[in-house]
């Protein structure tokens, strides 16, 4: 099957590579900046265009992969569905619940399949945690604390720093943990959140969220785009008969370069030296679904719920009140 990449930034490059690894062919790359489309297309000997709608409707395209800034995700999902293409959409699914619902309706009507890239469900370390919990190693889990982030990403035209577009660290970054917590511990009852979303004198965001799950379980979720460098993920689960801790800082390889000091990042993607990248695993899961082999680990409904929780956190931070889902 042939893939079109829409949005040729950091995640566009990632998904092009992973789709190819999963046995698909990248045939065309679209980006409103032609230079970016060209740069990615060159790597895959694909066509390039700055007209994304034209890219989506090309007859040789079977799957559209969307890696644009969040607010325009669903307009491309809808266009792809209407053109009869299957869709891979980067998280967050959309910027509003309404957008997500429209997109789900469009894929349903068209009879195509939509997968949203909540990749943390495929990360080996998070799967290892799930396996231990499922095996009952720490008994019933009552409390979880998660931590994710580092330096604030830039992105084309600094779109991550425009909180109206990205939703800040809470909506763009912490949504990984919001989805994973719901995956592990079921639906959320209510959310309380605080965040910085500062633009002066330094642009930085930092967020502190507490989720109360319907089961009563409490999760404390910290997200940072306030660090001067780096990227770190920490997770701690406390159960009635034990604990599990994970900290990405305890990685097996620590490399320090003498050159290139002070180079700024685009979008930071954590690298873990594993046999198969979790980004490839999510693509393989999606492709297996397209070949009717199995249901995928993440559904469009899951992605909509993650958006709902993320928006509730933003609303709580604005209002100073808990928000019920």
């Amino acid at each position, binding site marked *: 099957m042939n893939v079109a990449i829409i949005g040729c930034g950091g995640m566009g490059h990632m998904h092009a590579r992973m789709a190819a690894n999963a046995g698909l062919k990248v045939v065309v790359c679209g980006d409103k900046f032609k230079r970016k489309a060209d740069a990615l297309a060159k790597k895959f000997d694909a066509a390039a265009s700055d007209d994304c709608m034209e890219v989506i409707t090309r007859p040789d395209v079977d799957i559209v992969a969307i890696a644009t800034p969040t607010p325009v995700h669903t307009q491309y999902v809808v266009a792809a569905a209407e053109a009869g293409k299957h869709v891979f959409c980067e998280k967050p699914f959309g910027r509003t619940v309404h957008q997500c619902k429209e997109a789900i309706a469009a894929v349903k009507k068209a009879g195509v399949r939509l997968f949203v890239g909540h990749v943390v469900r495929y990360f080996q370390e998070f799967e290892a945690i799930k396996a231990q919990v499922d095996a009952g190693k*720490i008994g019933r889990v*009552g*409390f979880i*604390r998660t931590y994710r982030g580092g330096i604030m990403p830039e992105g084309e035209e600094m779109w991550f720093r425009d909180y109206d577009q990205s939703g800040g660290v809470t909506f763009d970054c912490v949504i990984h943990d919001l989805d994973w917590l719901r995956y592990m511990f079921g639906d959320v009852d209510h959310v*309380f959140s*605080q*965040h*910085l979303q*500062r633009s002066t*004198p*330094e642009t*930085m965001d*930092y967020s*502190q969220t*507490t989720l*109360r799950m319907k089961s*009563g*379980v*409490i999760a*404390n979720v*910290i997200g*940072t785009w*306030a*660090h*001067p460098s780096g990227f770190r993920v920490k997770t701690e689960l*406390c*159960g*009635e*008969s*034990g*604990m599990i801790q994970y900290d990405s800082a305890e990685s097996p390889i620590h490399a320090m370069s003498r050159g290139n000091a002070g180079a700024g990042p685009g979008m930071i993607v954590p690298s873990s030296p594993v046999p198969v990248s979790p980004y490839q695993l999510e693509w393989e899961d999606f492709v297996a679904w397209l070949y009717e082999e199995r249901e995928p680990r993440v559904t469009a409904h899951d992605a909509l719920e993650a958006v709902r929780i993320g928006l509730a956190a933003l609303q709580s931070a604005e209002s*100073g*009140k*808990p928000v019920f889902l």
Partner: protein
Amino acid sequence: MTKIGMMSFAHMHACSYAACVNQLADAELTAIWDDDAARGQSMAKQYKTTFMADMKKFLASDIEGVIICSENVKHRAMTEAAAKAGKWVLCEKPLATTVDDAKAMVAACKKAKVGLGTAFPCRYAPTLIELKDRVARGELGEIYAASTTNNGSYPGGWFADDALSGGGATMDHTVHVVDVLRWLTGKEFTKAYCENGRLIHKNIHTDDVGSVHLEMDGGLIVSHIASWNRSKSFPTWGDVTLELIGEKGVIEVDAFNQKINVYSDKQMKAEWANWGGNMDLGLVQDFVAAVRERRDPPVTGLDGLRAVEVTVAAYRSVQTGKMVRVAS
């Protein structure tokens, strides 16, 4: 030689304080009174001092200062009795379980013209002193946010009996970090929101995890975890951690992460042996100096009261389901 007495060993920190008094060249542990006579006698033996069964006689003696380590709800009565007898008081945290009790204790000591200190030993932890110095030097510029934890293992006994403790992990493990943040920033707490519950331990009847959201003057946001969530298999008792987000940078502190990893087949459990300084010694030393010089200890009853106000607001938030004002 400054004469120090101890009132109750209900709280296990009493053992450390007694050992500290015994270490000081200019202080003596003159006597122990305890409403649990068997415990008091055994502690008197252990710390080589006299047990006195009668609190009146104990307070009428020539002891100059007392360290109170009773169950939380008894702090007030013991402090009032000691103040009335003209004794300087160092009271285990939390100072009290209600704002009224804490205020009464501060007032009683003021009236009796005795010093009242709250046992917040974190202010004597070398790591946190280093943090305080860095903040004071302006390394962070303005502090915008703090994410903190005071996790612990389950203490059992009266700690899980609200009638004696005033509350569970949220009561037990909020005040240390609240005091550290006041000390670091010079700001007061304005608002509190809390989710808590019995989430970890079966068959107990109080909260063992509290997720507390706070605001300080100027909008500084704080997320704090107060818990008894450390399992028996965890290599240490718990932690005090802070991540401070400032205008000019970030400081992450794991206050007691000065440890060696010990793997003993005799234990069959990995253990962290701490080699950092004994923060309790500084606390007790400063209390003894305050007694000798007849002045307030550096960490006062008012500091204890402010921390109680935050904890009480957290529990009020749990009851109302809203973010509430911290009364002061």
